[in-house]
């Protein structure tokens, strides 16, 4: 109870501090797999990235309230399919993992599993405040507070909940990242697996993942 008294003095960090803290928060890899030194392969990479950015198979993991925004995004009114975004049924086929809202620790386990089962290059779009900093569940004993501690996130879409327009904006950002070769952190996840595993194990109490990382 002693520390509670200290917290009453409220100090707002500066934006610069926040940005610095966020950069230190999770490991960020340069998108190593996609920048090739060979000049001849750059064209190939460009074409592939073009295809990738226009063909995003979306695995919407409807964890929280945000799941309701996905149908709106995909159907006639906002028509995400014109950007090449369409639903995928299983992680094996999907390119984008979309986490829509808060994640309880029990669900986190499944999400990690799903993420690991997706094929490279794979992207994660986190959706809503809850995935960024816990949102309204900031002090819940059973939801995680920051998704990128557990799996690498490419794009955060802020809001509670973000409207479909915001979602589309997020996807546009993702496409931009893909074209530049800055998205898709599967490689990074694999490289920093120990760090991620440590974080995951801290939260997930009954840890029964296979020892080896399965693709």
């Amino acid at each position: 109870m002693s520390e509670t008294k200290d917290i009453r003095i409220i100090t707002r960090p500066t934006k610069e501090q926040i940005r610095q803290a966020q950069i230190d928060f999770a490991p960020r890899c340069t998108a190593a797999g996609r920048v090739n030194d060979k000049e001849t392969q750059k064209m190939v990479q460009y074409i592939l990235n073009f295809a990738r950015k226009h063909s995003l198979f979306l695995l919407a993991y409807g964890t929280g309230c945000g799941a309701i925004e996905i149908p709106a995004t995909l159907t006639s009114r906002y028509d995400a399919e014109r950007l090449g975004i369409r639903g995928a049924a299983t992680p094996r086929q999907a390119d984008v993992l979309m986490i829509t809202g808060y994640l309880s620790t029990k669900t986190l386990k499944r999400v990690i599993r799903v993420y690991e089962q997706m094929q490279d290059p794979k992207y994660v779009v986190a959706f809503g405040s809850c995935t960024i900093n816990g949102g309204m569940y900031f002090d819940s004993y059973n939801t995680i507070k920051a998704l990128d501690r557990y799996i690498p996130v490419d794009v955060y879409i802020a809001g509670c909940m973000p409207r479909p327009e915001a979602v589309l904006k997020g996807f546009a950002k993702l496409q931009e990242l893909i074209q530049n070769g800055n998205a898709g952190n599967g490689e990074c996840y694999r490289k920093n697996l120990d760090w991620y595993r440590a974080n995951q194990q801290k939260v997930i109490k009954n840890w029964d993942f296979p020892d080896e990382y399965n693709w």
Partner: protein
Amino acid sequence: MGIIYVLGILIIGALAAFFVDDLNRKWTGPVAMLAGFGAAAAFAFLPGGIVRWRILGFSMHWETDALAGFFAWIVLGLSALALMYSVKYMEGKARQGYFYASFLTSVAGMFGVAVSKDLLSFFIFWEIMTWTSFLLAIYNAYYGVETKGIKYIIFSAIGAYAMLTAIVLALGQYHSLEFSDLMAAGAFRFSSGNWYIPVLLLLGFAVKAAVLPLHVWAPAVYPKTPMSFTAVFSGAMSKMGILGMLLILTGIFRSATGWELTLVRWVLGWLGGLTAAWATLQAIRQNDAKDLLAWSSVAQLGYIVTAVSTGTRLGLMAALYLALLHAAFKGSLFMVAGAVEKQAGTTDFRRISGLIKRMPWTFLTALIAIISLAGIPPLGGFVGKWLLYESLISETHAYFLVILIFFASTSAFLYSYRFLFGLFLGQEEEEAKQITEVSWWMLIPMLALSAVSVVTGMYPGLIFRPAARALESIGLPAGQWDMSILSNVWGNQTDVFTVGSTVGILFVLWALFITFKGKKNTRWLTTKEISTSGEIPAPEDNCTFQRGFFQPFERAVGRLYRSSMDQLWEDIGAALEAFFGFIRKIYTGNAQTYAMYVIIFVVLLILFRNYIF
């Protein structure tokens, strides 16, 4: 004299196996196997010749013409391989001497049926093969003795005695039992006044060939018999019924037209088609590999019966071709079931799955055999299907029958897949991890039989030519046959060699492509690591979809599944038993009653003496 040698080798082998078993159990199987291969070798290398002898005033005539040779090869070849398979399959089982003695005697019976050229020796060998197979059918059946085995023998007896009735009637009428004499006298024609002779004979053959209302014994008995014999049981013995039909119907076929031919085509053809369809529907709902194969055998025999009933060039060729090929692939499939049973202890789909990694060679055999069974092009089974359809469409104009057959054969995909999936695919059981591949003694026969399907897929002419000779030998239309080009009466052709090579080349190319593209980054997972909903299956969980596999299909078929031919026969059997029990009460065990019977009998006799004497 080859016939005598073959029979002699088989009988001596049977006796030897019976007695060797008492001396040293280890040698029983090899001795029997030697006898099996010895018989095949004797048949291959010694001239078959003609054997005639007289017994009790009846002449017996055995001859190895081309037809007999064709069927004898089915019998001897399959049996030799099955015996080789038995050596390890039966290892550690009780009563091996009994098993092998019955097996070899049964083979002798089948061989005898194949070479018999008169009805009496045909019948004698037929009966020998029947009761020996009965002894084998009840080998495993600790609980089924009173029901399943008896069902078999009752149906066999009905068939055999129908034959016997026909034989004695024919003997009384024509004073000869030689096929050639009877054929010449027109004994097998429906128009001959003795129309019941061919009908009764066909009834007898129909039982063995498991044609529709008389098929119930086959699904009951095949799964209960040791698998190494079931291979022969289904592969070779049922073909004897086909041989009989062929022999009987020859006279009608030769006459080319006429109402008799139409009758045969309609009745027998539709019976065959209905058998195929019904048995296929039944096979789809089975949950045990052995039951499934048993029903599948019935269905395949239905095709062959339909093919025989056409009596045309393509149809008869289809019958003989399918007879041989069915022996090959169904033989290997039953062997596969036996191998799985031996290694895993059960063939129940609901209790095992995912054996492909444990028994890859067995799976390969099963795959080839199943593809052949389903009639998918590059393998041999397709050729048989092609011949059958072309015959029905272009030669006999049985348009709706062909649809029925096609329905059966399309539905056959369902159980074909179920067999492979149920045993070999799906997630691996944790306790199945220690299952190993069977020994080469069992694999070699299985693979050899599968090889038949592969080779005939490219070169069906290898079977066409002996089959055509066989048909010519009894004066049926055979025609010219190319090595790999099939052609129907309208001149349309299918070149199976081109098909096979195209498929083969493309397959290899694409397989190489898909293997070497991104080979480094391709990871091979276990079947436990499936993607659904992110849950990690516990090691003891098995997610394989095995129960009610074709439930939607069953619902679509609906009411048809509720009726059961088996139940009908069982009801009849129960009613008869009750009736016998009632009749038995005549013998009351009471002396007064018996005395009363005597008095009443006397009185009746005296009263009606003028009518009686």
